[in-house]
């Protein structure tokens, strides 16, 4: 009798533990999915801002990079993987945004340049959120017990998204625009790189 009680208690404990692990995996998968959605949204926003600036200032190289980036978004928004192909076009866009022509054009169109820099700063943040989530999920699903019992199910492990998103260094004139000196409106979004909503 007492053996039966012990066995039942053990089974319940193990089942509870496994359920809890599965719940954590689900929660992490949801976090990765949200972070991925956020990252794609920021990539789309950055490319849109880059396209605007390119059009305003007739920057062919930037226009081409922005166009190539925009071509990959429909499949991404439909759920395609953030793979090496996406990383390539986003890297090319990052490089175009750091070019001297863009900096020069920004002198004439500070608002457009600012939108681009804001977008780039948010891409860097969104990418950090995404990769942090991916790392946490991979750490948990890599545990032996979880692999042996296939607790992750058929979900493929998500990949990190690695691009060069270093922010361009702007000189004083452009930077001055980025610093909010107005005391008037307490929450005037869009006045600083990385803060525009």
């Amino acid at each position, binding site marked *: 009798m007492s053996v039966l009680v012990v066995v039942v208690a053990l089974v319940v404990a193990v089942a509870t533990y496994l359920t809890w692990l599965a719940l*954590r995996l689900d929660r992490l998968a949801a976090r990765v999915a*949200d972070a991925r959605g*956020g990252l794609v949204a920021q990539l789309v926003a950055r490319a849109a801002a880059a396209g605007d600036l390119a059009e305003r200032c007739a920057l062919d190289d930037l226009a081409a990079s922005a166009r190539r980036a925009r071509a990959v978004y429909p499949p991404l928004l439909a759920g395609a993987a953030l793979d090496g192909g996406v990383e390539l076009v986003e890297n090319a866009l990052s490089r175009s945004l750091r070019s001297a022509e863009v900096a020069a054009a920004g002198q004439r169109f500070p608002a457009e340049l600012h939108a681009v820099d804001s977008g780039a700063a948010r891409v860097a943040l969104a990418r950090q959120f995404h990769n942090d989530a991916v790392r946490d999920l991979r750490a948990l699903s890599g545990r032996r017990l979880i692999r042996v019992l296939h607790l992750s199910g058929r979900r493929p492990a998500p990949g990190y998204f690695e691009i060069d998103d270093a922010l361009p260094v702007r000189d004083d004139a452009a930077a001055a625009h980025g*610093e909010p000196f107005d005391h008037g409106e*307490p929450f005037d979004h869009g006045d600083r790189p990385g803060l525009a909503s």
Partner: protein
Amino acid sequence: MKIGLACPYTWDVPGGVQVHVRDLAETLIAAGHEVSVITPVDDERTLPAYAVDAGRALPVRYNGSVARLLMGPVSAARVRRWLREHDFDVLHAHEPSAPSIGLLACMLADGPIVATFHTANPRSRFLVAAQGALQPSFEKLRARIAVSEAARRTLVEHLGADAILIPNGVAVDGFADAQPLPGYGDGRPTVVFLGRIDEPRKGLDVLLAAMPALLARIPDARLLVAGPGDAAGLRARLEPDLRTRVDLVGLVSDADKPRVFASGQAYCAPNTGQESFGIVLLEAMAAGTPVVASDIDAFRRVLDDGRAGRLFDVGDPGRLAAVLAEVLTDPEAAAELVRRGRGVVETYDWRTIAERIVDIYQMVSGDRQVSVAAS
């Protein structure tokens, strides 16, 4: 947005984290957000309308000081009810590495959670011992914020996770347009010191040693010293001809602090020890007083490498006297320091800081709201 802030430490006991949570909550409310704070508190009557009582915290000896912590079933029930009643767009837990309400909220909630780490603690025994137990809660954090480079490093070293650096905000509004204290503001060149007078790290001795050289250059200069400590003992140690040039006004109230800065043509921070952050420097800059400070990392960072305030070699009275004399006798250079100082202060203004935090809320919140976790 609907924002829930979980504060780990007793609301009515003075502390940096509590001040941070209060200022953040009030700035967010002023900006039109819906904010609720849950916090331990000793006397419930001290809670503002936006805060909810999580119970009384237990004092625990930890890390050389007494921390007041709270993790019991009563608090858990209160946090659960708080989460259920509010449907937050985002939950912002403070210091979830301490066993208190911040961590409890992370354990009990599900959805968009952001955490701010305040403490720099290179060898946190609790963090090391509890890492495995904390992981299930920490893996819910969609964004981590650290208030200082040191706090960020602590996080990287103990948890292998990076964080976004967003400094503490400074409530700068009260500092602009302050009136000088009675007897000051008459145009006589005045240097201001603020801090404990008998704590060597604060460096008052360096400043006193610089006074003779300063008086040789500017004979009518004087020094205003505001801060607690043994004033009689200090006065006895002063050279007789310095005694009439050094005013010891003792501890000043928070309300009078802006007036102290407004009483001087220069604010001097001669600290000899490492400081983690130069809040007093920012307050002086907000008051429009030129800053002269020791060349230590934290001050150099706040003073924009010497552009927004003058730096001098740590513990060197000769250099300090020379730099002070330049600031006191060159009104144009002083005005330029003040102008740049105001620009720096702007980036630490709570409104700017809160804007950056809201930006993170928006990036992580998505369309899910915060809910009570299934387990």
